């Protein structure tokens, strides 16, 4: 399995020099396809001081198919579905946008970037996106509250 080799390599890289605010570990020892990621809410965003548990699962066809990123911790964010799945909509993770040369580190950094700068035009939660665009203070308030409650 070529994918295991690459994933192990990326995992080693990420654990050795983790990106800012992100720690990575395997969800289960021996299964490289499911990762558990702790992501700190970036400073300046309503998610600051929150600690979000993110699940990243890799398809066996990785890197030819994109990984999926989902928030286990509930989060009030236009690009994360507000259900028990908490799946995140990342542009670069769509099948036609994905490139095998993209690395997981880039995915995670992009995900964290999305916390500080949501993309309301690319939203999965239309209501939150609407609020983000039109009533920013209210959105931030709710997001902060959720962060305090859940994260």
């Amino acid at each position, binding site marked *: 399995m*070529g994918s295991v080799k690459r994933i192990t390599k990326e995992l080693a890289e990420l654990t050795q020099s983790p990106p800012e605010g992100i720690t990575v570990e395997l969800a289960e020892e021996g299964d490289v396809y499911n990762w558990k990621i702790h992501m700190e809410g970036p400073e300046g965003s309503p998610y600051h001081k929150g600690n979000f548990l993110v699940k990243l699962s890799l398809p066996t066809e990785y890197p030819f198919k994109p990984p999926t990123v989902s928030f286990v911790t509930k989060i009030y964010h236009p690009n994360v579905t507000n259900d028990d799945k908490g799946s995140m909509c990342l542009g670069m993770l769509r099948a036609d946008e994905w490139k095998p*040369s993209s690395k997981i580190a880039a995915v995670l950094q992009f995900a964290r970037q999305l916390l500080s700068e949501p993309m309301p035009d690319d939203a999965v939660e239309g209501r939150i996106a609407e609020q983000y665009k039109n009533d920013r203070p209210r959105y931030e308030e709710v997001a902060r509250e959720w962060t305090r409650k859940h994260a």
Partner: protein
Amino acid sequence: MASTSVTASTSLPDHPRPSRLRRFSQLRTYTQTLSSTGSQRSRNSISSRVPWRSSVSGSNSPVENSTTPCPETEPSLSRYTSAPAPTYGIGELNSHASSTESATSTPLNEVAETPDEMARLRSASAVQHPPSRTLERTTTNSQEPTPSPEPSVASNHTAEATPAESNTPPRAETKATIRFFPYTDASQSSRPSLPFVPVTRTLPSESCVIRVGRYSERDGVPIPNPTEPTDTPVGFKSKVVSRKHCEFLYVNGQWHIKDVGSSSGTFLNHMRLSQPNMVSRLYSIKDGDIVQLGIDFRGGEEMIFRCVRIRIECNRSWQQKPNEFNKNTESLIKNLGKGETADYSGCRECSICLGSVLRPYQCLFMAACAHVWHYKCISRLLHSPDYPMFQCPNCRAFTDLSADVDDTNEIDDTPANDETGDQASNSTGEPEADAPSTSATNSTAEPRDHLQELPEEAMLANNVENLHLEELDQEMEHAFRTVSPALDPASTSLARSATISIPGWQPSLPLSVPAGRQPHLRSDTPTSDDNPLTPRNDSGPLAFDGRAGMP
């Protein structure tokens, strides 16, 4: 059709036996004449119906391969090397005639054409013979005697065909080239669009227009990818494509598209250009644009009711020229096996396995965009359902892996490569890479870069830069041309004379390949056509049943 050419070529070499008494060289040219004219003619007769690719498949017959290593350049040669026959006497002529009769598959028009052919030849033969001898000695490649007489022959011919020459524009170094690739929308669950073989068009002059419309029997099948610049219309066998659907124009260095009154519409990136049966204004197109012709007809499931989705590739000529990125890769590959001091630290990694790529003793694949991966890592993308199409996972450049080897590049590369030695030969004969994939790499002609990822403004800026680059290259080319006659008169005269198109000639035959270079390539690297491992598409560009894109 393959059988006709085989019978022609196998039966013929027996006949010139009577002339064995003559000098051997003469016999050699003679046998070539017979076999090649025979096979070539039978091809010509069908070439109006069968696309060029499938005619190449006829060259699989071993006999033909041995006698005509380069079938494309053969016709011009064969006519003129047969010149000795009329002047040398009746005995040969008789055997010539008898052999044509015996080759039953040879179409009649050969006999019909012979008189005027001979008349032309007789005038040329007197002058032609001595130089061909001298040239034969100077030609280094002794294995292929065919190309050697050609320079003199062709240059002789220029005298006859001066009017034709003045009509055909000289081959410019940079031509407006556009490519059409089938586009499959991965995100939508829509039906697949009409499959077609990638089409390349290079405009002979800026004023030319590429017409796109429904394929029609009356026009005959256009050659999908001719080697010469041409504005042959592009035909798609779909009912939703109008006979006159749209046109591609090259205005002020920019490609444009125009709907010429199609009934079911032309869509540029999902935007309809005009109302039904209305001519639209010009819309500029850029690389990567998606053009859709017509809308799927819901009444039928057959391929013929599918719309055509084209991915445009244009303004990419700069990538086929040496640039920093591919030169860097080239030098890395060049130093690959040279052991001890080689520095692999600066090597790019394989984006699939994230391992370092350029190490000796590994099978590598290099795409035309100079991105390199381990063959094993990339093979999954090479042997995909859309096989002849390969998308670079790094820069998303689309490549037609079944495209013919583009020799014209070599001429452009030469001045640049002179400084760095034998890079050209290195890139074609890269020892580490898997053989089929190397040939595929060579055959792909549109490298692309990380520039693809730049925003549009940057792309524009890049285009401007590229214009400068191209101008520079032209200058270099000129310099090269002016210097070269002294250095290598044979090859330049050859390259020039080969571009001349002759009135009354078979226009469908790509006879203008620089003949001196082609045989080298052909003999060294197996083309994708000859490779038994690569899937083939012999059904031509207009296969109905979806086989066109399949292995």
